[in-house]
């Protein structure tokens, strides 16, 4: 069995963004040290070697001073990919240098857009030049693997503005782009009170297709529904999710697929800090089953093996040919298939033999 990944959820933000439903608290600085101690306490139970580590959030750069001691508890392999998410509003060059020194070797920057009006719409605390500066500083601090998150379907976003954002990103030392669609989550301010100029499915589909096209032109290969990378810069940690491999999650709201079980830590920071060991709840009673392998595998451009796709053949007959490719013993979705992935996967799984 290959080595597992380690995910550490950092539930702190300077301010909550109105569209985000990840578990995170704002203005809770006094809890940082307690949180870091609890993470270390939990990590002490595991001495296995991890080959990817991912600090997600929240805003992980807020706990930069504790990262070195947290990582000192992790038995990661020498070639491990160690990523941290990073917010341009709260990370300067000092922070970036400290992160690099603590062992982080990959950054995922929450750029979202390089248009100031769009950033305002999203309620972000940074502007486009903050984001550009951060990426340049990161390169100076020694990061040679940098990813930028951008968002599709921002109110006011147009084909022109998206093209501009992507082209400017490609001029920066960025090797990886994640493009997410703005999604209304019921429990968020956006979900309760959607922006009037929210992109509809047609507009979203157009923006997505444009993003695929420009990324391809700029040399970023789409390797997953939302992810584009220069060759060799795919996110190894996230690949574990899609390849249905195991990972351990530490921190409130963190999810795990560990020793054959899927479980999550309750969304309770204080409880996490107080407990000698984090509590977990089973989330799935059929982890790693056939449907899951198909669902996850088809998100990737590499697709799924012949062994996995054989039962899907009856459903494939119902699909127009431009949405998938069957070659070299693998089934994969085409660029046209990705934006209707849910439809295709549920159709295929509904017609298995």
């Amino acid at each position: 069995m290959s080595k597992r990944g380690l995910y550490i959820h950092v539930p702190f933000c300077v301010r909550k963004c109105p569209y985000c439903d990840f578990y995170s608290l704002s203005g809770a600085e006094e809890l940082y040290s307690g949180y870091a101690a609890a993470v270390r306490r939990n990590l002490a139970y595991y001495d296995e070697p991890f080959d990817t580590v991912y600090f997600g959030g929240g805003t992980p750069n807020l706990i930069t001073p504790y990262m070195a001691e947290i990582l000192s508890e992790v038995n990661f392999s020498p070639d491990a990919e160690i990523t941290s998410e990073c917010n341009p509003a709260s990370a300067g060059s000092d922070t970036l240098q400290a992160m690099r020194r603590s062992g982080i070797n990959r950054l995922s920057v929450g750029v979202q857009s390089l248009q100031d009006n769009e950033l305002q719409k999203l309620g972000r605390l940074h502007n486009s030049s903050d984001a550009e500066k951060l990426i340049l500083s990161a390169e100076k601090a020694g990061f040679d693997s940098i990813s930028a998150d951008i968002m599709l379907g921002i109110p006011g976003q147009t084909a022109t503005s998206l093209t501009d954002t992507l082209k400017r990103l490609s001029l920066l030392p960025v090797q990886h782009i994640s493009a997410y669609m703005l999604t209304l989550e019921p429990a968020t301010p956006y979900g309760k009170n959607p922006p009037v100029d929210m992109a509809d499915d047609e507009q979203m589909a157009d923006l997505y297709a444009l993003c695929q096209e420009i990324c391809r032109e700029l040399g970023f290969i789409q390797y997953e529904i939302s992810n584009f990378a220069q060759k060799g810069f795919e996110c190894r940690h996230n690949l574990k999710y899609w390849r249905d491999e195991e990972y351990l999650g530490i921190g409130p709201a963190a999810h795990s697929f560990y020793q054959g079980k899927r479980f999550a830590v309750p969304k309770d920071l204080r409880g996490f800090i107080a407990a000698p060991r984090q509590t977990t709840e089973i989330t799935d009673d059929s982890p790693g089953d056939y449907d899951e392998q198909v669902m996850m595998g088809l998100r990737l451009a590499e697709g799924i093996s012949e062994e996995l796709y054989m039962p899907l053949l009856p459903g494939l007959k119902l699909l127009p040919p431009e949405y998938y490719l069957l070659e070299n013993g693998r089934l994969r979705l085409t660029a046209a298939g990705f934006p209707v992935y849910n439809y295709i996967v549920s159709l295929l799984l509904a017609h298995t033999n």
Partner: protein
Amino acid sequence: MADTSYLDKIRNFCIIAHIDHGKSTLADRILEQTQTVALRDMEEQLLDNMDIERERGITIKARAVRLKYHADDGEDYIFNLIDTPGHVDFNYEVSRSLVACEGAILIVDASQGIEAQTLANTYLAVENDLEVVPVINKIDLPSAHPEQVKEEIENVIGIPAEGAPEISAKMGINIHAVMECIVHSIPAPKGDTEAPLQALIFDSYYDSYKGVITYVRIKEGSVKPGDRIRMMATGAEFTVVETGFMGATELVPCSGLKAGEVGYIAASIKSIGETKVGDTVTSADKPASEPLAGYREVNPMVFSGIYPADGAKYVDLREALEKLQLNDASLSFEPETSVALGFGFRCGFLGLLHMEIIQERIEREYNLDIITTAPSVVYKIELTDGTVKMIDNPTNYPDPSEIAQAYEPMVNAHVYAPSEYVGNIMELCQNRRGVFRDMKYIDEARVDLHYELPLNEIVYDFFDALKSRTRGYASYDYEMMGFVPSKLVKLDILLNGDIIDALSFIVHADKAYERARKMAEKLKEHIPRQLFEIPIQAAVGGKIIARETIKALRKDVLAKCYGGDITRKKKLLEKQKEGKKRMRAFGTVEVPQEAFMAVLKLDDE
């Protein structure tokens, strides 16, 4: 002559009423009063033991139960109570129950007065020579006017109602008066225990251990375990394994059943065909010379195809239909095939509610996913070669060039409603090609509107439309009056250029355009977007008369950051997958089952 004094202490009766006037609630109260059910086991609508009945708050199946009542005269009486359905679709169940009884308690709602089913059910009871005992229910309601309702009963139905108990079954008021009424007003049964056995089967169901259990009313003679019995209609013979009566929650075996009693017989009957509701059970050794008068055969009014969503479940579907038919003789079915849906069954129902209930029971009690095609009534077609065909499936509708004359079934319908809604009702009946006959005032405020209506205009959604136009105050009842010449056409629906036979429809020529347009709109609404554009067309004889287009799906993906929470994504996709399983592929077009039902309900004003 044997001692028949036990008969004096038996009362066989049913409860009849319009839907929602409180039959099942009164049955509950009677059960409590006689302490047939321990209070701790008591629950609402105790006799309605199907989930669907409880959820919808209606009675579908008649239920029999035996009770013991200690009357004011100091004597103990055996009550055999049969709770009956109130909806027009289930009149048939009511008439079966009546044959087992000497009397009927007629419940009338003190605030609503006489409704369509009050009359229909009373007439059924009177036809069967039952003593009808009126009871005024819901006197606790502020809008109750019991005196006026009593007058209505006397004037409209023509039975004395002055002494009718005024009760509230819900609040338990005056139930005792009902009990005493049963003792004094309902005649004791008659019969001779020495005569050859004649037992009328009024219901049956299948028990996986005991085989078919038949519910019988013993008219003459007696029967006990070990006896050889014969079904007079089928000639099949069996040895009785068990006799007994119906407790409130379970069957209670007894040593034998005698003339005048109501109970059950189990005789290891395995085959459905051998017991027929309405048949007479007699002794094989000493048979009766003639069977009892059975029931009027019910004719199904509405037909539709039922298909398993998963073709491999065809045999399971057949078994489910066979079992349902065992205790619902009004359900008929025979195999049919559809180009679009494969192998299934053409089923006949009493009405649309009946159809919905059967559909739901197949899905719930037998755990089968099914697809139901557009329902049709029976049409009579005279062909140019002089032969006559009865058509209950649009697929079999002959080519127009071969049709000399088409006929459609008509009904006599009575609508009861407050007079302020007369305008709305007339407009509705007019729209449904109704022919006005007359209008009578039941009292100052309420009318009885009499229309002749084509059956195909009322079976689908007439009652819903009527209720929405009268704020729920109207009730209606109808009876078949025969076939009349009509101008009919077959309407075909094409999805992506292919005719979907399961959606074909027979419709009056004047209504073809409107229905075609509405069908196309409804289908557009209910068929989700797919990976390509889907034209929906409606055609009569090859000519397209309506068209809609479902645009291609462009985005259906969760492209979002999610930090390893795969479970949530998986649940979403599993849900979508289940949705897709409920779809049926026509060529490459996926149609959800709901679309088939939705096209029936076209009347949305």
